[in-house]
């Protein structure tokens, strides 16, 4: 005698797969965000990396999804390096550079999509989503290991805390920061490619819909630690899943005059929860000491 009937089982299964699917792009981008921010570069540009990855994935992936994925990763990395160049060499404020890249990415992808894709859009075969999900599961462990158990990770953290002290220890901060922000761009691109190649098999201009910002929120929610950020991504993924499941089921939850199952409220949930977490649990978490500062 099972404790749950078939319907409930099915619901739980659907919820958990949807949670994983929702968390995947966030976790991928968040791992990139951790690398970048632990090296001292604020990365609001994650949103732009994701949009770019989503577009390039479809653009280059019309014959083979794998080619699209590779291209998305590569172009993402290039955008990451651009962010690195602007903030490190051109001394653009990190938030300003991130916003500029986001605008550029949003404008350029829409512009190019209107030119190169037909009005109905292009559908692609894409890449099986399990590839992305698998990557998203493994990656937090890899990033944790890299940060705390390797020379690269130690130096990266040192550069994010105090680049001048790192320099005085004989380390050159700049290559490390480029590496970190390049990897971040790559992961952001892959996360974006998941949205287009893995999930919807097409590109639409607003498909990242702020997921890059949410990934950044996951980084901070997780106190700049891979495990914490991954859990935060799962939590946000669960919000998305809950929302879509409630919408599919058509159930209404009405309580104290508020329609809790309203899609608008459910959409709001991850953002509200992040805010709430920042106000309560996370509190005054200390970011890397040199985050956003000039070297």
């Amino acid at each position, binding site marked *: 005698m099972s404790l749950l009937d078939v319907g409930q089982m099915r619901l739980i299964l659907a919820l958990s797969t949807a949670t994983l699917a929702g968390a995947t792009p966030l976790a991928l981008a968040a791992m990139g965000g951790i690398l970048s921010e632990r090296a001292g570069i604020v990365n609001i540009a994650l949103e732009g990396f994701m949009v770019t990855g989503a577009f390039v994935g479809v653009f280059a992936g019309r014959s083979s999804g794998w080619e699209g994925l590779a291209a998305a990763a590569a172009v993402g990395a290039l955008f990451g390096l651009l962010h690195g160049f602007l903030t490190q060499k051109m001394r653009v404020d*990190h938030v300003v*550079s991130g916003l500029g890249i986001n605008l*550029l990415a949003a404008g350029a992808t829409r512009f190019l999509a209107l030119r190169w894709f037909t009005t109905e859009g292009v559908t692609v075969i894409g890449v099986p989503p399990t590839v992305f999900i698998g990557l998203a599961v493994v990656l937090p462990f890899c990033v944790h290991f890299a940060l705390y158990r390797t020379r690269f990770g130690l130096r990266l953290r040192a550069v994010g805390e105090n680049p001048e002290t790192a320099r005085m220890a004989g380390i050159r901060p700049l290559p490390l920061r480029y590496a970190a922000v390049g990897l971040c761009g790559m992961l952001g691109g892959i996360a974006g490619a998941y949205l287009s190649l893995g999930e919807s098999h097409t590109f639409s201009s607003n498909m990242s819909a702020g997921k890059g910002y949410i990934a950044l929120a996951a980084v901070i929610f997780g106190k700049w630690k891979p495990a914490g950020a991954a859990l935060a991504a799962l939590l946000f993924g669960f919000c998305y899943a809950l929302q879509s499941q409630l919408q599919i089921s058509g159930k209404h939850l009405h309580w104290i005059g508020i329609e809790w199952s309203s899609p608008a409220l459910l959409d709001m949930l991850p953002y509200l929860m992040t*805010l709430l977490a920042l106000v309560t649990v996370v509190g005054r978490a200390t970011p890397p000491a040199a985050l956003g500062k000039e070297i």
Partner: protein
Amino acid sequence: MKRPSLSGILHSRALFLFGCVLGGLGIAGVIMAACGYPVGAAYGALWTGATGIQTGPADGLSQIGFVIAGRQVHIHLFLFAQSLARATPLILTGLAVAVGLRAGLFNIGAQGQMVLGALGAAVAGQAHGLSPAIHVPLVLLTGAAVGACWGAIPALLKSRRGVHEVLSTILLNYVAVNLAAYLILHGLKDPERMAAETREIAASAWLGTAPFALQSNLTGGFLIAVVAAVGFAALLPWTAWGYRLRAVGLGPEAAEAAGIKVDRTRIFAMALSGALAGAAGAIEVMSVHHRYVEGVAATYGFDGIAVALLGGLSGIGVLVSALFFGALESGAAFMESQTNVPADLAVIVEGIVILFAGIRLVRRSRAREHIEEGRQATDVSA
């Protein structure tokens, strides 16, 4: 995360910024050319759409003709007015971002503040039987008040709980949009409409259209925005509050140690910032849509960041850069209608202009260290 270095932005460098604009247009031109669009025709249309200036004789009521170097030219007043209309919300959101940054807070939340301001205005606009002399200010102030409340939240969160404002304002944008959507769905929706919109506001709350371009969206709202910009320009150097604002933004610790209440100043600044963004929303409702519609704020809130940065955080600078961005976006829309080049080109230009304008050629921390090290040595010989 950190706010941009203020004095870096404040440096008077109009020429450099002009170069940034040219650079942005240039790179966008290359992208256009690479996509096989006719660059010359597109930029011609962009220019006409932005300024209203066209070659050829005037042939209508809304056109004013004149002669330059023996060639007949005319200004199409409708196109010109549309550029100003487009600049109106940008002036206000640009000021909103500038006020926040002057106090040392990066307000990325002008978007959300504008959305809720617009909704508040649309609700206040439902009142009937008021004279325009009362109703117009009432609606405007309602929008500003709602925006102010929403804008003060991130400053409160920062001072009480240490939540970084960049993150909280981004999050609050999404909350605001969804909150507006929820309120429309559950109570405020116009039952006669399919789309998620409020009812139309009473005519007493409408802002009148400019008499020389009656078909355009240009209203008295533009004047309100200009007054706000001039007021802001006067506030900073001439009042004690403006002085405190600058002190808090440039040297919060020194301000605190000298007895200025940094948290209170910042909360007030963010409330003002939100009020300006909320007023932008109210003016859009009163001038253009006459109701709250989804997308009433377009991307004005985010564009305000570009406007503020390009305008060097000064009132007049914001005014000029908002006029530029307004003309650019309005011109791009005209360009799309004439040449099929997507209007998103304007967004590309904006992105590139922000990136260029953010470039700082002097490494500040190093420069200061050198000055310090050097000056100490001169002290002895001075």
